[in-house]
């Protein structure tokens, strides 16, 4: 029977535990729940001086303003496109990479290939951008050693909007293929070796083995990873875009989060950008729910 005195007794008895967890709770509240509470700003005509309590309630005004914003469509499109390309590439390629690595019999080679592939993950986004800028610059190796000899032109990768998506996905792949493949490699080692032996006795060649044992074996892992990443489609890496984009390629590079940064942090339009951010969060949340519901329908793995 959970009465108030029972609760208090438990707290008193194990006060040390409660004390410990309150430290974490404090951080959680301050840096996660307080901002959540701050979402109210999206519904008010907020300004720094008057603060939250004093400002006027305006309801959905800023949300409507956003949908009327001339950049609205472009932003949503870019966010979804970049996000989708990103998640898709970082889903398929690591799996293929893991499968290929799995076929390597030489343990040393496998280890070295793995180590090398993880390395880019440790590099900061800023360094990656620096490397990308140098490689794809007008004086960089791509232009000077491949494109100019072949066509005589110089491609200005960071001025022409149409290149951004490719560069973005390539840089994400370079950095994260290795790291993302770890979880699949771990799943691969979990597949029962007897299954392979039985298949060999039945006369299956390696390709058939992969198709009928390996892939179904890591299927649950693939599903869980997919579900965990679906929400990220819409939360396109703010860091990555921020560090790679510039005004001349806003057309394909500007996403919701970078727009929020410019108009909110730099432009001080707090209420408006909070509304946009809220919209972004809700989209992300919806995607996760939809993906989960779909999985439930098809009787496969799900998050809950």
């Amino acid at each position, binding site marked *: 029977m959970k009465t108030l005195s029972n609760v208090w007794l438990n707290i008193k008895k194990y006060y040390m535990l409660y004390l410990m967890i309150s430290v974490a709770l404090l*951080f959680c509240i301050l840096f996660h729940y307080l901002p959540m509470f*701050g*979402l109210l700003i999206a519904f008010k005509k907020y300004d720094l001086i008057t603060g939250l309590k004093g400002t006027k309630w305006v309801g959905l005004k800023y949300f409507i303003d956003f949908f009327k914003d001339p950049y609205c469509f472009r932003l949503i499109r870019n966010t979804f496109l970049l996000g989708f390309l990103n998640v898709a590439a970082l889903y398929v390629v690591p799996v293929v990479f893991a499968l290929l690595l799995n076929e390597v019999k030489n343990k040393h080679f496998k280890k070295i290939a793995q180590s090398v592939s993880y*390395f880019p993950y440790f590099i900061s986004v*800023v360094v990656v951008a*620096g490397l990308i800028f140098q*490689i794809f610059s007008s004086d960089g190796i791509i232009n000077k050693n491949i494109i100019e000899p072949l066509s005589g032109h110089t491609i200005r990768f960071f001025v022409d909007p149409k290149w951004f998506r490719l560069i973005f996905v390539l840089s994400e792949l370079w950095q994260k293929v290795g790291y993302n493949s770890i979880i699949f490699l771990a799943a691969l080692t979990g597949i029962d070796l007897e299954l392979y032996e039985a298949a060999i006795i039945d006369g299956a060649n390696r390709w058939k083995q992969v198709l009928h044992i390996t892939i179904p074996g890591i299927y649950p892992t693939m599903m869980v990873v997919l579900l965990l990443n679906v929400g990220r489609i819409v939360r396109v890496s703010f860091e990555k875009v921020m560090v790679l984009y510039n005004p001349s390629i806003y057309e394909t590079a500007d996403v919701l989060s970078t727009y929020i940064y410019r108009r909110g*942090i730099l432009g001080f339009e707090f209420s408006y950008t909070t509304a946009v951010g809220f919209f972004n*969060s809700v989209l992300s949340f919806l995607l996760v729910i939809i993906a989960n519901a779909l999985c439930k329908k098809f009787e496969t793995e799900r998050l809950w």
Partner: protein
Amino acid sequence: MNYKLSKSYMAFQIFNYTLLIITSFIMLYPIIYSVAISLSDPLEILKGNVTIIPKGVNIEAYKVVFASPEIFVAYLNTILYTVSGVLLTLLVTVFAAYPLAQSRFIYGKIFSVIFLITMFFSGGMIPRYLVIDKLGLMDSRLSVILPNAFQVFYILIMRTSFKSIPSSLSESAFIDGANDMQILVKIMFPLTKSMLAAISLFSAISYWNAYIDPLLFLTNSSKFPLTLLLNKIIHGTADNAAFINKYLDMGQVVGVGFLQSLKMATLIVSLLPIALVYPFIQKYFVKGVMLGSVKG
């Protein structure tokens, strides 16, 4: 097994090895190229002669970089943020995970839910920015250290780790009169070293490479970490790095080429600690990811 010697299997193996070698090369190449540029003569760079090895080797760029105080200050800042960040993260994580791993902590579920919700929903950039401002942390070093100390993922995997320790150990300690804190430090810590190491590693990488929080919250350039300084240099908006400014305005050919060397040299210098430490920490890292993903 006969099928292993079949032509198609051999062909595949050759294809596979080749592909993986190419992939490994691609992984390393940008760094190799960057080193080459940083050590090359500006004219050679502009002519496009530098591909893998430096041409016209000189260390002028590095001389300039090492002589500049901004780099030194930024390095110190990064180290400060990383060390204090990791320590704080470990503290917060352990203090949350230990109670949650105890079955006598009956209201643990409530806390779990409170923590988990933050994984799926958040206030967003602007509310977070405003909270930091209202807390008086704007432009303070704490703004970069504090917010990221609380990570639900670390708490979850740490909890799993604590749970795997047999309760008989702590029970006998209780009988001997120990309290929770002593049990935590004397029994739990030594037994969960690998998980603690994994979390420290993830956290350290995260803090070392942190760029967004410093960008949003820091305005005083003497508090900038390496990433922020590097970002300004790469984008050519180095209003705070005098050593780059000198060359930004140089219209001459040599200036433009040397600027590239300079940028790459700065990049390599900020990359160096990680590159040096990587071979040693790599195995802990993989262990940590496996621990986290398989159990979590």
